[in-house]
């Protein structure tokens, strides 16, 4: 693929104490976030958590009630959107339907007074970058959803923005295209080196694409960390349960130790200090083995290709989801009596449900 993108280094973006209210609803609550130059940070959270509000404030499509936004040394908090020099890819298809792909990509350059030859050259380069060089003369209604979003990405990058903003750009696409375009976005972002803020409610998307992921809840960032850290060492119950699959296993905490499923484990920081609670355990941290006299009973065994998921009912009526590899899983069947044990050395304990 021919790419002739200008070598650039992204700028630092700082969101300081950003707050935004809509009537009585507190969409953003004193949000602090720093994006390092060239970094891609994903804001992940459920609907209404404030992630899109944060992105729109950065884009200048809305104004904060308090706080400020700095891009490099520039305070852009009250700067109009058309002066901010930011590229944005929207959730739904936002291509201008009356312009060809190439004209769409060149649109921002046209507004900047770039001469025709230069903007056509740049538009072609950007279309090549997203793998659509051969579709330059097509209109939006002649492109698939994935192609339209690629063009939107090319259009956002054509103006060499100081920051790239991605507002759930993959949510309207089917699963296969979503995965392809997700990788494509990351490749292009790394190639151009623009600092990027990516908003999504899809945890898999966030974990796969971002340098760091900020999990948002009720207008605040609950945890901002690298994907591995976020998954393996969630800082709160909300993060633990929002990111990945999680079991709640009844347990008892005392003196920093957790009694759970017949084992004594360490209590991770942020755990309930003492008393009965729920240990938060991922399916891959549970081991299921067929055993006479075991306390669990297999409900279902689901083969998912590389892994198998086993659902087990415990004596107290609760259900646990475990992950088993091929050999173990082959020995399991519905209604079988099994033992369930935890392979983790420590767990996070939440108040009981």
């Amino acid at each position: 693929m021919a790419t002739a993108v200008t070598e650039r280094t992204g700028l630092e973006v700082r969101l300081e104490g950003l707050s935004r209210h809509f009537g009585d609803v507190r969409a953003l609550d004193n949000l602090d976030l720093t994006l390092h130059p060239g970094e891609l940070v994903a804001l992940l959270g459920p609907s209404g958590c404030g992630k899109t509000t944060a992105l729109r404030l950065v884009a200048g499509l809305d104004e904060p009630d308090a706080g400020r936004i700095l891009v490099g040394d520039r305070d852009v908090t009250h700067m109009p959107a058309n002066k901010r020099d930011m590229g944005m890819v929207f959730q739904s298809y936002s291509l201008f339907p009356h312009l060809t792909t190439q004209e769409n990509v060149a649109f921002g350059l046209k507004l900047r007074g770039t001469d025709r030859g230069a903007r056509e050259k740049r538009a072609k380069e950007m279309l090549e970058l997203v793998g659509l060089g051969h579709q330059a003369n097509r209109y939006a209604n002649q492109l698939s959803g994935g192609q339209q979003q690629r063009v939107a990405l090319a259009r956002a990058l054509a103006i060499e923005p100081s920051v790239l903003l991605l507002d759930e750009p993959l949510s309207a696409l089917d699963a296969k295209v979503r995965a392809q375009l997700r990788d494509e976005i990351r490749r292009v972002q790394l190639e151009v080196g623009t600092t990027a803020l990516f908003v999504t409610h899809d945890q898999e998307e966030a974990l796969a694409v971002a340098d760091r992921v900020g999990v948002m809840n009720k207008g605040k960032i609950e945890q901002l960390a690298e994907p591995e850290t976020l998954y393996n060492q969630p800082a709160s119950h909300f993060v633990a349960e929002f990111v990945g699959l999680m079991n709640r296993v009844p347990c008892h905490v005392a003196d920093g130790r957790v009694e759970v499923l017949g084992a004594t484990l360490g209590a991770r920081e942020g755990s309930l200090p003492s008393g009965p609670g729920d240990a938060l355990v991922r399916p891959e941290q549970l081991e299921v083995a067929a055993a006479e006299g075991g306390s669990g009973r297999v409900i279902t065994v689901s083969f998912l290709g590389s892994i198998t998921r086993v659902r087990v009912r415990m004596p107290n009526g609760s259900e646990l989801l475990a992950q088993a590899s091929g050999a173990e899983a082959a020995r399991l069947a519905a209604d079988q009596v099994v033992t369930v044990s935890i392979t983790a050395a420590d767990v996070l304990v939440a108040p009981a449900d």
Partner: protein
Amino acid sequence: MKTRARRLLPTLGLVPFLGYLTVFLFIPTIIIVVGAFTDHGRASLTNIQGLANPTVWQALKQSLILSASTAAIGAVFGSLLAYALVSGNPSGLARRAATSVCGVLAQFGGVMLAFAFIATLSYSGSLTDLLRDHAGIDIFGSGWLFALPGLILVYSYFQIPLMVIVFLPALDGIRVQWREAAENLGATTWQFWRHVGGPLLFPAFLGSALLLFANAFASYATAAALVSQGNPITPLYIRAALTSEIILGRQNLAYALALEMIVVVAIVMAAYALLVRRTSKWLS
């Protein structure tokens, strides 16, 4: 056989519509065309030649001026009003009230509308009297209300609301994302309308303006109620051709005039289709 019958079944649903078109469009059009080329039961060009009469030409010219000017006035003011409405709360009271009022006013043409203007602006109309008595201004003048300027004013009364109704859906179709994307790429409000909003709305604007033109061109009742002397526009000339005792022996001139109107509308529609096809490849 069964499959064929099943395939034909949905087509049966079209029968009432096709029947309607046949009775109220195709047959009258055929009658008009045949009548225009017939005189006393024989094929003739007499009626068509009658269209060259200076008074017929004058009526056609005035009809075209009336239709084009009220279409332009309606299109400009109506689209501005529609824009004002979409800029507000989409489910707000102002919008709901304005669209309801426009719906009523767009259908308010005819005798009622003519009488309303006569009662207000004629020689002894309420506003004329008021201004004459208290400000010494004579707005009636030489009777402009009953000539072309008056028709333009009265027609605008229903053309503007009609434009609001037909253009509102097109304005609603302008996505917020387009505006935000343009803004994000550096566009000012003016640049957005010039490069994005304007071109996107152009076909709908043109289509709406054409509808207004056709609406004014074919309007009869309002003009008939307002103008009792002379035939300043083609529809009134058709009335005269059908009822006048002066234009005797030219019964089929009305058909020729109607054919003339059909041809004008067909030319305007063809020009519109051509223009839209050239400017809006993206619509296909």
